[in-house]
């Protein structure tokens, strides 16, 4: 079969027609059905308008997220508020911000010092617990404990010393 014959045969398929009974019934059924006119925005709900809005919204949100992540928001807001608000003492605000910043630096230094001191104490205690302190001689402590009368409110040795000092 040549291409021309094929195309002729395809054209002859135009002879296929719907049943007149179906045509009539279907037409009556469609035209008698109540047509609910929906709002235009609803009809294009899944169409171009909705897609455009979704795309636009996502772009705005993405841009906002990027600005926040990069920390640009602070500088933008500072620039906006400091330059645009009337009656704002710009110099005063900047001095106050510097003072706060300096206080924070000092507190950070102190925190660092305490951290170092705590570390040294920790090391000393660790050594003491392992090796024992040099001055904590158990014999000396025992001797002092035996000669010192904790029950007697007057110690004769102390009294003698005090008398010597007063002369």
């Amino acid at each position, binding site marked *: 079969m040549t*291409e021309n014959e094929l195309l002729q045969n395809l054209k002859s*398929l135009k002879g296929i027609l*719907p*049943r007149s009974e179906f045509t009539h019934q279907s037409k009556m059924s*469609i035209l008698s059905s109540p047509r609910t006119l929906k709002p235009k925005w609803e*009809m294009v709900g899944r*169409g171009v308008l909705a897609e455009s809005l979704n795309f636009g919204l996502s772009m705005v949100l993405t841009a906002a997220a990027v600005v926040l992540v990069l920390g640009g928001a602070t500088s933008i807001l500072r620039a906006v508020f400091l330059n645009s608000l009337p009656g704002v003492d710009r110099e005063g605000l900047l001095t106050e911000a510097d003072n706060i910043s300096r206080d924070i630096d000092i507190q950070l230094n102190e925190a660092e010092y305490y951290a170092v001191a705590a570390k040294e104490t920790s090391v000393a205690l660790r050594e003491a617990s392992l090796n024992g302190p040099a001055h904590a001689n158990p014999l000396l402590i025992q001797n002092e404990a035996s000669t010192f009368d904790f029950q007697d409110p007057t110690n004769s040795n102390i009294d003698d010393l005090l008398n010597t000092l007063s002369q």
Partner: protein
Amino acid sequence: MLEDEQKLVKKAKDGEVEAFGLLYDHYLPKIYRFVLLKVSHREEAEDLTHQAFLKAWENINQYNFKGYSFGAWLYRIARNTTVDYYRNSRSETSMEEVSEIAIEGISLGGAVDKKMEWEGLVKSIRRLKEIEQEVLIMRFVEDLSPKEIAEAIEKSEGAVKLIQHRAINNLKKMVNEGK
């Protein structure tokens, strides 16, 4: 394209039932043939055609004239309706159903020896890819322009011409192999 088609569409949009009735009368045979050649079941073709026109009537406000006919928009609805039908229940075409289509044509004055030729042709069309079937029917049975087909199948005119070329070649091969 129907004369004063856009005026009829506007009236139909305004709710004039008679205007849509005229559009229906003009396009029903075309849409019915398009669907029937794709599904090959008369009753299903009738149901799908009815559904397509009902959707068109309910959503006619969505149609906007952009240089293509109301028909292209109708074909798109019919195509989507058929795709949904295929997605839900695809059935094989029997020879009896193909013959039924052929008989419909013969009853309109065709010769008896045409029956075999038609059967072979319809069977071959159904063996083509979906997109090739659609382009072939719209272009060579219904005489739609490539621009209108492009709008109906949501592809470029260039793509339509390419599909058309492939479809004709494949169909020719299939029909000649079947002889």
